C-alpha cells in the first residue's frame, strides 16, 4: 500500500495539535476538540497519528500496543513521518500509542521518571471510543477548578486503581492523553481521582 500523507501544513498543523495537547494536560479531565485531516493506516486512529506526528521524533522512542505493532503499514507510516525509533520495550518509550485501551498494559511497565528527574517519564496516548466530560469519575488537582469529571471507555477493569496508584506516586508517574474521534483530554499524574465519598 502507498504511504499515506502526513500533515498538509507541517508547521501549523503540528502547532495546533500541540496546543490542543497543552490545553488538555493543563486543564485535566476537560474534553476539547482535536480536528485532524490525517487518514493514517488502520488501526492507527487519526488522533493518535496527529499527536505522534506533532510530538515524536528521533529523540523519542515510540512503543506501539499489539494491534498497532502488528501492522507493517502503521510502522512504516510512523517511521517515515516522525523518524522516531519504534521500541518493543515499554520501559524505553517516551510515548506509547495505544489503539486497544481496554488491554492497556499495566502503568508499571512504562518509565515513570526518577525522584531527581520526574520528567523522564512516558506519556501514554490512548485511542478511546468515547470521551465525555459530563459524567464519570471525578478528579481534582492542579489545572482543575474544584473538580472535573471524565467518562472514558473502553478502559481496563482496574482503571480506577491504576489512576489512584499513579497519582499517589506523584511527582513520579506516567501522563495520559486520552483521545476519541475528534476529541482530546488529558489526565496528567497530578490529577487525583476522588473517592465516591469526596466526589
Amino acid at each position, binding site marked *: 500500500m502507498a504511504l499515506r500523507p502526513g500533515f498538509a501544513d507541517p508547521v501549523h498543523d503540528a502547532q495546533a495539535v500541540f496546543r490542543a495537547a497543552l490545553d488538555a494536560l493543563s486543564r485535566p479531565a476537560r474534553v476539547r476538540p482535536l480536528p485532524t485531516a490525517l487518514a493514517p493506516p488502520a488501526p492507527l486512529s487519526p488522533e493518535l497519528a496527529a499527536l505522534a506526528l506533532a510530538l515524536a521524533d528521533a529523540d523519542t522512542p515510540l512503543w506501539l500496543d499489539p494491534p498497532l505493532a502488528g501492522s507493517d503499514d502503521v510502522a512504516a507510516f510512523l517511521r517515515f513521518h516522525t523518524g522516531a525509533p519504534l521500541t518493543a520495550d515499554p520501559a524505553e518509550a517516551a510515548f506509547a500509542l495505544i489503539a486497544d485501551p481496554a488491554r492497556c498494559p499495566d502503568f508499571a511497565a512504562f518509565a515513570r521518571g526518577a525522584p531527581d528527574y520526574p*520528567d523522564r517519564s512516558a506519556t501514554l496516548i490512548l485511542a478511546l471510543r468515547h470521551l465525555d466530560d459530563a459524567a464519570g469519575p471525578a478528579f481534582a488537582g492542579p489545572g482543575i*477548578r474544584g473538580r472535573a469529571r471524565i467518562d472514558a471507555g473502553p478502559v481496563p477493569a482496574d482503571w480506577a486503581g491504576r489512576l489512584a496508584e499513579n497519582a499517589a506516586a506523584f511527582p513520579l508517574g506516567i501522563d495520559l492523553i486520552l483521545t476519541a474521534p475528534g476529541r482530546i483530554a488529558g489526565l496528567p499524574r497530578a490529577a487525583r481521582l476522588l473517592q465516591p465519598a469526596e466526589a
Partner: protein
Amino acid sequence: MSAASALPETGYNFAYLDEGTKRMIRRAILKAVAVPGYQVPFAAREMPMPYGWGTGGVQVTAAILGASDVLKVIDQGADDTTNAVSIRRFFGRTAGVATTTRTCEASVIQTRHRIPETPLTEDQILVYQVPIPEPLRFLEPRETETRQLHALGEYGLMHVKLYEDIARHGHIATTYAYPVEVAGRYVMDPSPTPKFDNPKMDDCPALQLFGAGREKRIYAVPPYTRVRSLDFEDHPFRVQSFDRPCALCGAADVYLDEVVLDDAGGRMFVCSDTDHCEARRAAGHAGEQAA
C-alpha cells in the same frame, strides 16, 4: 490590536525556531505542566539576542505561538521599553502574528518581571522570562545537591533564609523573586517579579509558563493551581503597599514605579503596568499629576 509592525521576514521558519527545536521545547512544556513547579531541563538554543534579554521566554513563546495568536510583550510592566518592543517586533517579523499592548486582547503574554494588573483569563497564556530558575541556587550552588533537595522535598534551607531575614531586619526582607510552593510540592522561583504579584499566581485562570534560556530550564503552573508564598505563622506573607496612588491615573491598588523628574528631588510614582494606567486614564480616572 495591530497587524505585524514590520513586514514579515522571509527565509525563517514560522516563529524563528526550526520544527525539531519546537518539538523538543513542546515536550518539555508538556512535562512541566504535568509536574507543576518542577524545572524540566531542555536544550535551549542560542537566540539572536543575548542571554539575560529573555531567550528562555522567547523560546517558549516561539514553541507555543500559532498564526491566530495575539501577542503582548511587557518588560517591568511596560509595553514600550526596549526589551518588550524588540521581542514584539521579533515575533511580528518572524511569525507575522498580530501584536497588541492591551492585556485583554492578548492570547499569549510574554513578561519580564511583572504580572499584568488586569486579571488574566482562561484563554490566555503568560510566559515568564526567567534569569535564574533555581530558588535554592544562592543557598546551595551545586546543581547535584539542589536537585536532591527538590527530589526529597527538603526546603528547610529556604525557611532558614527567610528566618535570617527576620532575625536581621525584623521582617522578611525578600521583596522580589519571593519563593512559592506550587500545588503543595515543589518550591519555585516566580522569576524576579515583585512579591506584590505573588498573590496573582495563586488560582490563576491562565496557564503560566516559565522559560530560562541560559540555565536551560522550563517550568509551569497550570491554571487554578495553589501557589503559596512561603512564610511563618507569626510572620505571614505580606505584599508591598504604597502610601500614595498612581500620579497619572490615581490607582491605589497597583504596583508603582518611581520616576525622577528633576535634579532637585522631584519625583512621581506611576503605575508600572502601562496598559492598565492608559486604560484607566482613557476611562476618565486622573491622578494628581495627570496632564
